[in-house]
C-alpha cells in the first residue's frame, strides 16, 4: 500500500515538475512600452500592435503549435522606470525576447542583455548603437538607423538638386543629435552644402531666430531630426510667412499623420522618409490584414500610426525568429538560436509593410520618401524603396 502511495505521489510530482518545465518553455515576449509620458503617442500604438500580432499568431496556431505569451509594462519614457519594469517582467516571466522603450534604456541595458539576460531585443529606437551585431548580437532595429534615414534623404536631395544648400534643424536631445555628425559627412560626399545648423527645444514655438538665420544663409532644404510634430509645423508656417521657399524634410518619427493634420493646406511642403507603408495604402496585403483585424476587433479605431507599424514589424520578426529557432536543436530557449534565426531572415515577405526583409547588421536599411498631400492630408510615396548598403 505504502509503495503504491509512494509511486502515485512520485508520478504526480514528476508530472508536476514536467508541467512546470513545459510551462517555462512557452515562447514569451516581454515589452516595456512608453505608455505614459512624452512618448506615449508611440507607446499606446506600439502596445496595441504587439498585442495584435501576438493574437493573430495565436489564432493561426501559435509558434509551431505553442501558444505565444506576451506581457508588458509601462516605462513612462524614463530610463530608471523602464529598467525597473524590464527587470520586473524578466523576473516574473523569463522571456526569450524583450522590447524596450527608448534609446537610453537600450544603451543602459545593452551590456546586461548581452552578458546576462541573453534575450533577442529591440526597442522604440533607430539609434546606430542598437544595430551592431559585432558588439552586441542580441540587439536589433526593425528598420533603418537614423543615419540610414538621413542617407535616404540626402541621396534624394542630391538627385533632385545637386549642390543644394542644406540646414539641419534638430532638437538638443540624444535623439536629435544622433545622425548629425554622420549627416555632415554624407552631405559633403554627395556634394551638398550644410550651410546652417539650427537647434530648438522639442515643442518650441519662438523660432524667428532660426528661420531668419536660414533665410540669410539661403537654405534650400531643411532636414528635421528629433521632433515629432512641433516645432516642425511652426517652422513651416512661419517660414512661409517670411516668404521663404525652403523644402522641408524629416525622418521617421515626424513623418506621421499628426504633422499633416497640423500643417493642413501646407501639408505638401513636407517630405519625409519612413521605413513602413501607411495604414491607408489599401493595395498592400499586410495593410489589408491590419485594416480587417482593426475593423473587426476595434471598430472605433480609424487609423494606425507609423509607431504601430514599427512595433508590428518588430513583432513579426520576433514571431519569425521564434518559428525558425524552434526547429533548431535546443529550440528557442537557447539564446544563440534566436539570434541565428533572426540573422538568417532573408527576403522575408511582409506583405508590402516593407519590401521583402533581409537583415543586414541587425537592422533593415530600407526607406522610402513620402510627400504630404494637402488635398487628402495623407502621405503619398514619391520614391521607390531605397536600399542602403
Amino acid at each position: 500500500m505504502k509503495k503504491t502511495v509512494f509511486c502515485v505521489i512520485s508520478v504526480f510530482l514528476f508530472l508536476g515538475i514536467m508541467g512546470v518545465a513545459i510551462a517555462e518553455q512557452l515562447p514569451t515576449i516581454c515589452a516595456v512600452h512608453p505608455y505614459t509620458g512624452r512618448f506615449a503617442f508611440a507607446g499606446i500604438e506600439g502596445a496595441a500592435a504587439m498585442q495584435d500580432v501576438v493574437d493573430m499568431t495565436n489564432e493561426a496556431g501559435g509558434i509551431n503549435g505553442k501558444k505565444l505569451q506576451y506581457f508588458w509594462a509601462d516605462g513612462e519614457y524614463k530610463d530608471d522606470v523602464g529598467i525597473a519594469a524590464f527587470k520586473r517582467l524578466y523576473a516574473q516571466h523569463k522571456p526569450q525576447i524583450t522590447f524596450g522603450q527608448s534609446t537610453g534604456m537600450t544603451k543602459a541595458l545593452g551590456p546586461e542583455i548581452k552578458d546576462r539576460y541573453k534575450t533577442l531585443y529591440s526597442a522604440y529606437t533607430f539609434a546606430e548603437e542598437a544595430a551592431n551585431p559585432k558588439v552586441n548580437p542580441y540587439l536589433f532595429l526593425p528598420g533603418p538607423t537614423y543615419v540610414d534615414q538621413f542617407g535616404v534623404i540626402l541621396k534624394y536631395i542630391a538627385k533632385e538638386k545637386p549642390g543644394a544648400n542644406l540646414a539641419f534643424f534638430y532638437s538638443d536631445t540624444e535623439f536629435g543629435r544622433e545622425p548629425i555628425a554622420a549627416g555632415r559627412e554624407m552631405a559633403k560626399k554627395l556634394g551638398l552644402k550644410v550651410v546652417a545648423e539650427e537647434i530648438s527645444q522639442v515643442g518650441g514655438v519662438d523660432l524667428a531666430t532660426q528661420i531668419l538665420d536660414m533665410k540669410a544663409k539661403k537654405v534650400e532644404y531643411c532636414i528635421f531630426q528629433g521632433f515629432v510634430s512641433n516645432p516642425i509645423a511652426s517652422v513651416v508656417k512661419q517660414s512661409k510667412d517670411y516668404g521663404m521657399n525652403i523644402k522641408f524634410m524629416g525622418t521617421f518619427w515626424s513623418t506621421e499623420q499628426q504633422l499633416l493634420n497640423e500643417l493642413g493646406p501646407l501639408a505638401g511642403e513636407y517630405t519625409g522618409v519612413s521605413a513602413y507603408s501607411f495604414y491607408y495604402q489599401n493595395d498592400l496585403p499586410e495593410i489589408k490584414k491590419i485594416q480587417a483585424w482593426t475593423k473587426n476587433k476595434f471598430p472605433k479605431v480609424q487609423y494606425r500610426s507609423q509607431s504601430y507599424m514599427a512595433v508590428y514589424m518588430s513583432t513579426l520578426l520576433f514571431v519569425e525568429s521564434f518559428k525558425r529557432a524552434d526547429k533548431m536543436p535546443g529550440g528557442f530557449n537557447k539564446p544563440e538560436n534566436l539570434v541565428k534565426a533572426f540573422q538568417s531572415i532573408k527576403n522575408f515577405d511582409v506583405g508590402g509593410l516593407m519590401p521583402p526583409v533581409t537583415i543586414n547588421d541587425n537592422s533593415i536599411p530600407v526607406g522610402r520618401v513620402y510627400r504630404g498631400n494637402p488635398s487628402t492630408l495623407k502621405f503619398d510615396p514619391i520614391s521607390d524603396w531605397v536600399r542602403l548598403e
Partner: protein
Amino acid sequence: MRSGDFKENYISDEAIFPSLFARFWVAALLVFLLVFPFIANNHLLYIANMIGFAVIGAVGLNLLTGFTGQISLGHAAFIGVGAYTSAILVTRYGFSFWLSIPLAGMASALAGALIGIPSLRVKGLYLCIATLASQFIFGFIFVHWESMTKGITGIHIPPPAIGALHFDNERKFYWITLFFVLLGVGYARNLIRSKMGRAFMAVRDRDLAAEIMGINLFRYKLSAFAISSFYAGVTGALLVNFLKVVVPEQFSFMVCIEYLAMVIVGGLGSVIGSVFGAVFMTLVPEVLSVLSDIVKEAAPEMASLIVPFKQVVFGFLIVSFLIFEPRGLVEIWNRIKKFFLLWPFSY
C-alpha cells in the same frame, strides 16, 4: 513608571539614538538590510539599489535645503558632475572605482561650492534661479565637451571589482550601495549635532542673527553647498557605475524636482525624513506600477485608463501628505514614536 523622555546630561541629549525604541528599530532595520539580498529577486534588488542612491542624494540635498535653508535647483547637475567624473576617471585614466567615488564627490563639491557663491548675496527664489543656471551650464558641458564626455553617445563603464570579484549584478552591487548609504546617513546624522550642524541651522533660522553671533556665513553657506554636492557626486558616481552607462539625459531638470520632492515629502531638516522621502518617491511609483499591471492583466481592455491612472494616484498621494502632514513623513514617524514611548498610558 515612565511618563516622558527626560535627558539628565548632555551626553544623553546628544546621543544619535536617544531611546531604546530607536535603537531597537535601527537594529531591526540593519538586520533586515543584511538579510534582504538573500531573499529578494533581481527586480527588488534593483529597486533597493535605486532607493539607496536616492537616499544618499536626498540626505545631501536636505543638508543644504532642510538644515541650512539654501534652496538649490542644481542638484541634478552636481549628480551629473560626479557621474561623469567617475566614468571618465575609470574608463579614460584607469582609476579604480573605489578611488573614483571620493574623487567624484570632491569634483561635485568643488562645483557646488562655486555655484554656491551667489548664496552669499541672494536668497530664496533668487538663489533658486542662480542655482538653476548650473543645471544648464553643466547640462551643456555634458553634451558638448565631447572629447571628454563622449557627448550624446555617453560612456560605457565596466563593473567595479575587487580582485576577481566583480560587482556586476544587483545583488553584488547592493553591498556597495548599502555601505555608502550607511556611511552617508551616519555622517549626516553626526554632522547635524556638531558645531557645523548647529551653525547650518542658525543660518537657516536667521542668517543675520547667526552672523552677529560669530558664525562665518561665507564659510558655512559654501560648506553646506560643498557637502551637499559631495553627496550628490557620490550618488551620481554610484548610479552610473551601477547602470554601467552615463548619458547626459540622466541628469535632466526633472531629477532636481524629484530630489526636492523627496526632501519635502520626507521632511525638511531631518535626516531620517530624507530617507523616508527617498523610499516613498522611489518605491511608491513601483508599487503602483505593479498594482496597475495586475489590474491591467485582469482587464486588458481597460489598460488605456488603468496605466496612466497610477500617476494620478501618485500625485494625489503627494498632495494628500502635504495637506494632512505638511512637516513630512518624518512627523508621522515622530507621532508613532511618541505613542509607543508612553504606551500603554499615552495621554
